[in-house]
C-alpha cells in the first residue's frame, strides 16, 4: 500500500492515537476507580489518594469469596484448555490427514456432517444449550460442580480448537509423515513424533485462545454454578446485582479479571485474530 507523507501522515497518526486512547480510556477509568475510597468514587474527583483498600477487602475480607472464584476460574480454564487441545488436535488430525470418502461416498458425507454439526455450536448462543444442560446436570449431580463446567467449556471451545488445528495440520507437508512411515514408524508414532512437534505454534494459539474464552465465559457459568463453584465473571456480576453496589470492590475485581488478557495481549495478535475468525467460516 502507498504510504502517507508529510501533513497527511501526522493527521493519520493523530487519528490512530485518538482511536487507541478511546480504547484505553475505560481501562484507565476502572483502574483509577479501583484505587479510590468509596467517597472519592461518589465525588468523581480526579484528585485522590490512591489506596489498596478495595483490593484488600476483595481478596482478604471474610465476606469475600473472591480468592475462591479466582481458583475456580483458573482450574476450569486450565482443565478445559488441556482437554480441548488434546481432543481438538486428534479430531483435526483425523479429519485432515485421511482421504475421507475415497473408498466410500459415505465417508465424505460423514466428515461434512461432523464439521457442520461442530460449526453449528459455534454459531448458536450458548444460552440456548444451557437449559437442557441444566436439566441433565441436575440429574447427574454435575450442577454446581466444576467438572460439569469444564465439560461445557470443552464443548464450547471444541469448534475453535478443531478448525484452528486443522489449518495448522494442513500446512504440515505430507512427505514428513510418509518418510516416518517408511522408516518403520507406526501411524500413532508418526503423529506423536513427526506431526506434533511441527504444530507446536498451533497448539500454543489454541491453548491461549481456549484459556481466555473459558476464563471470560459468563452465560453458562452463571446458570450452572452456585456460590462455591462461581467463577470470576459470575462473582463480578454479583457485585453489580447488589442493592447497594460496592463500586470500589467491583472495580478491583474487574481489573483483576482482565489480567490474563493483558498478559496475553503481547503474545501475538495475529494468531488471536486468526483463531477468532477460523471456525466460523470454512
Amino acid at each position: 500500500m502507498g504510504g502517507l507523507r508529510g501533513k497527511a501522515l501526522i493527521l493519520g497518526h493523530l487519528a490512530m492515537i485518538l482511536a487507541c486512547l478511546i480504547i484505553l480510556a475505560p481501562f484507565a477509568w476502572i483502574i483509577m476507580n479501583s484505587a479510590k475510597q468509596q467517597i472519592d468514587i461518589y465525588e468523581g474527583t480526579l484528585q485522590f489518594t490512591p489506596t489498596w483498600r478495595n483490593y484488600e477487602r476483595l481478596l482478604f475480607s471474610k465476606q469475600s469469596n473472591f480468592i475462591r472464584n479466582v481458583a475456580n476460574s483458573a482450574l476450569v480454564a486450565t482443565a478445559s484448555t488441556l482437554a480441548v487441545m488434546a481432543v481438538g488436535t486428534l479430531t483435526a488430525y483425523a479429519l485432515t490427514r485421511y482421504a475421507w470418502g475415497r473408498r466410500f461416498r459415505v465417508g465424505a458425507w460423514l466428515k461434512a456432517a461432523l464439521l457442520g454439526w461442530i460449526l453449528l455450536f459455534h454459531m448458536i448462543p450458548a444460552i440456548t444449550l444451557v437449559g437442557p444442560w441444566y436439566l441433565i446436570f441436575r440429574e447427574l449431580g454435575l450442577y454446581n460442580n466444576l467438572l460439569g463446567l469444564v465439560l461445557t467449556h470443552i464443548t464450547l471451545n471444541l469448534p475453535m480448537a478443531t478448525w484452528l488445528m486443522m489449518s495448522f495440520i494442513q500446512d504440515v507437508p505430507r512427505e514428513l509423515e510418509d518418510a516416518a512411515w517408511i522408516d518403520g514408524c507406526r501411524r500413532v508414532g508418526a503423529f506423536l513424533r513427526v506431526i506434533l512437534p511441527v504444530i507446536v505454534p498451533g497448539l500454543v494459539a489454541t491453548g491461549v485462545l481456549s484459556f481466555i474464552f473459558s476464563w471470560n465465559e459468563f452465560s453458562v457459568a452463571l446458570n450452572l454454578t452456585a456460590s462455591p463453584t462461581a467463577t470470576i465473571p459470575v462473582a463480578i456480576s454479583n457485585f453489580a446485582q447488589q442493592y447497594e453496589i460496592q463500586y470500589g470492590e467491583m472495580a478491583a475485581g474487574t481489573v483483576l479479571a482482565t489480567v490474563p488478557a493483558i498478559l496475553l495481549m503481547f503474545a501475538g495478535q495475529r494468531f488471536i485474530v486468526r483463531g477468532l475468525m477460523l471456525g466460523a467460516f470454512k
Partner: protein
Amino acid sequence: MAPAAGTREAAGPARSLADLLDATFQYWALVPALLILLALTLYPMLSILRMAVSTIDFAQGQFLWTFTGLQNWRSFVEDWLFRIALKNTLIFVIVAVTIEMLLGLSLALLACQIQMGKGIYRTIMVLPILVPAVAIGCMWRLMYNYDFGIFNQALVALGLTPLAWLADPRLAMASVILVDIWHWVPFVFLILLAGLEALPVEALEAANVDGANGWQRLRYVILPMIGPTLSVVVMFRTIFAFKVFDEIFLLTSGGPGTATEVVSLYIYKVFFAENRLGYGALLAILTILTICAFVGTYRWTRLGRRDPWAG
C-alpha cells in the same frame, strides 16, 4: 525410529491387535470428540425437542415432566415480549454491525498507509477482544453512572444537564450499542487491516499509473479486492451480535422496561427466572433455526467464490 521397529517384530495376536488399532488410528482419533458431541450436544438437542412439548416442574428435588403438546407453541403465538426482544435484537445487530464495519474499515484503510507504529496500534486494539465481556459491562456501567460517571461529569463541565444513560428508555439502547461498538470495532479493524496488507501491490500501482485518484482506487480497486473478507466479517459480526448477552446483562438486564431486552436475555429469563424450561426450549429451537436459515442463505448467495479464511 528404533522403538517402532522393535514393536513391529513383536509376535502373536498382540501384534495384530496393535496393528489393527494403528491402521484405524484415523477413526479412533475421533472418539473423544464424538463422545463429547454425543453427550453434550446431541443428547441435549434431543432433550430440547422433548422439553419443547412438555411442561417441567421442579418439586421435591425432582423434575416432573408433563407432556403438554402444543401448549408452549400457543404461549409463543401470544408472547408479545418475545417479539419486542426480537425487534430489539434486530435493531441492535443492524445498527451496531453497520457502524462497526464503517469505523473498522476507515481505521484499517488509514492504518495500512502508515508504516511506523502500526504494531503498537495493533497490540492496543487487540485488548477489548480478550477482556471478559462482563468486565467491559462493569467498566461502562461505572462510566455511564448518573452521579459520578465520566460522561455526566463531562456534560456538567460543559454546562449541560446530565443524562440517564442506562435508565432512560429512549437512550438505553443507544448506550448499549455504543459499548458494543467500542468492544468490536478493534476486531473489524484488525481483520480488515490483515486483509488489506495481503492485497497485491501491483494492482494498486497499476491504478496509480493509470492516474486513479484516491476515491477511484478505493471504489474500483481496493473494495472489490477485499470484498470477500468484508462479507465474512459482516457475517461473523452479525452472528455474534445476535448472541449478545454478557454486556447487556451487566449494563441494563434488558431494562428499563423492555428497552434493551434481547433474545438471549429473554431466553435466559424464561429458563431461569420464570422457570419455564419447556417454553424456553421452544424459544431456543426457534433461535437455532433462525441462525441456521441465516447461515444457509449466506452460504448460498456468498459474494466471494473463495473464502479468504479457508486456507
